[in-house]
């Protein structure tokens, strides 16, 4: 039996792993996006009393390796009596972790937002939330598109760390196959293929969105 044949026989496992990776990734980036927007809204023109702790939280998340965050949530919380389910721990940790990154990306873009547009909105009688959701957020998102694309790739790769908390996603499947049959090269070529396909798909989507913002002069690509 050649190495490739072994892998072919394990194709169902791979597909299930891939599907689970997709599921985790999709759910968690959707969550991360909402968290990022929420944090930006909270940072928007709030008092220092609120923004300081938020900024500290965001920076702390940026400093902490994802692996360790997951580890602490999954193996650490039980020691204070909280026992989370592996799958939801993974999705939740990814969402919060990358949510803070989204927030930081949005925030640094928000800093360069032309004040004139805000004034124009105020002069037209916009309230804070209307202004945020109708005018600020759409532009911030359009302008940070390339950075968000990068972040998505980081998030995709972080899903692989969930092996450590027993989530059977794509990398876990490959690990287990390769350590049962020690065929790492072949198993990992397949995995790289899957991840690559996913990130190429993302790049294409992001590029397509680029047309949308290029029309509005946000992109000189």
């Amino acid at each position, binding site marked *: 039996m050649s190495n490739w044949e072994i892998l072919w026989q394990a194709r169902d496992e791979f597909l299930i792993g891939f599907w689970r990776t997709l599921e985790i990734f999709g759910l968690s980036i959707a969550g991360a996006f909402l968290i990022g927007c929420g944090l930006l809204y909270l940072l928007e023109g709030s008092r220092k009393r609120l923004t300081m702790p938020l900024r500290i939280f965001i920076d702390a998340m940026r400093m902490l390796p994802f692996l360790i965050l997951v580890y602490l949530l999954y193996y650490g919380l039980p020691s204070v009596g909280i026992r989370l389910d592996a799958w939801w721990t993974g999705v939740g940790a990814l969402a919060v972790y990358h949510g803070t990154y989204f927030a930081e990306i949005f925030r640094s873009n928000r800093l360069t937002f*032309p004040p*004139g*547009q805000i*004034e*124009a*909105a*105020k*002069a*037209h*009688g*916009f*309230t*804070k939330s*209307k202004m945020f959701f*109708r*005018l600020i957020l*759409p*532009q911030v998102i*359009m302008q940070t598109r390339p950075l968000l694309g990068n972040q998505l790739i980081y998030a995709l790769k972080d899903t692989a760390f969930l092996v450590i908390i027993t989530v059977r996603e794509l990398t876990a499947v490959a690990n287990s196959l390769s350590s049962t049959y020690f065929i790492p090269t072949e198993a990992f070529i397949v995995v790289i293929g899957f991840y690559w396909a996913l990130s190429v798909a993302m790049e294409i989507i992001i590029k397509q969105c680029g047309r949308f*913002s290029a*029309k*509005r*002069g*946000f992109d000189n690509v």
Partner: protein
Amino acid sequence: MSEANTSETAAVSIRHLSKSFDDVEVLRDVELEVKTGEVVTIIGSSGSGKSTLLRCINWLEKPDRGSIHIAGQRIGVHDDGRAMPVRELAKVRAKTGMVFQGFNLWPHLNVLHNVTEAPIHVQGKSKREAEALAKALLDKVGMSHKHDSYPNTLSGGQKQRVAIARALAMQPTVMLFDEPTSALDPELVGEVLAVIKDLSAEGYTMVMVTHEMAFARAVSDQVVFLEKGLIIERADPETFFTTPKTDRVRKFLENHDTPSPA
């Protein structure tokens, strides 16, 4: 309360307005009354406080003292000194339409949506109603053919005309213009001034800061000269431009009529 009475009849009524930035007094005890249908031009040298005065009118800048009424309603604070809640402030603000030097169109919305955005989301108009109004206004400023273009594809003059339509769409009591043509190429100035002139002919109430003396003379009912935050001269345009009372204004007009090297 005499104050409330006079402001009821005026579109804008400014009383004892003062404002400082970091201990520098930028506006000092300014009084100004704009009647409905009147066009008031504010002129003065750079840094004299023109923009600040205009921005106080719709509370983009918070004055230190004094009161401002728009169509009889006080903006920013209640008479008893309580600050206005943001929602209420936004409502009073919507009675003014402001046109900025830098246009400040919202780049992610096309021309039509720039104009309909506030009527729909601030005034709660239906989409259909707002679009009908927007199309009429874009027609008025000669921009209806561009209604689905995005701001980045427009020339400066076109942008400014859209900005005017956008401000008009809120059907404001008074229009505020802050140097609406000074960011434009000389050849684009004309088209914007033409639109503003039309508006004045239609009886819109307007307060305008401008450097275009000839234009100010042609459209104003009242000209106000600011110097270091003080109104040092106010008159009808004929008097103001031909027989200014103070030396300062005379010197200013000399410098401005024919721009020449220092």
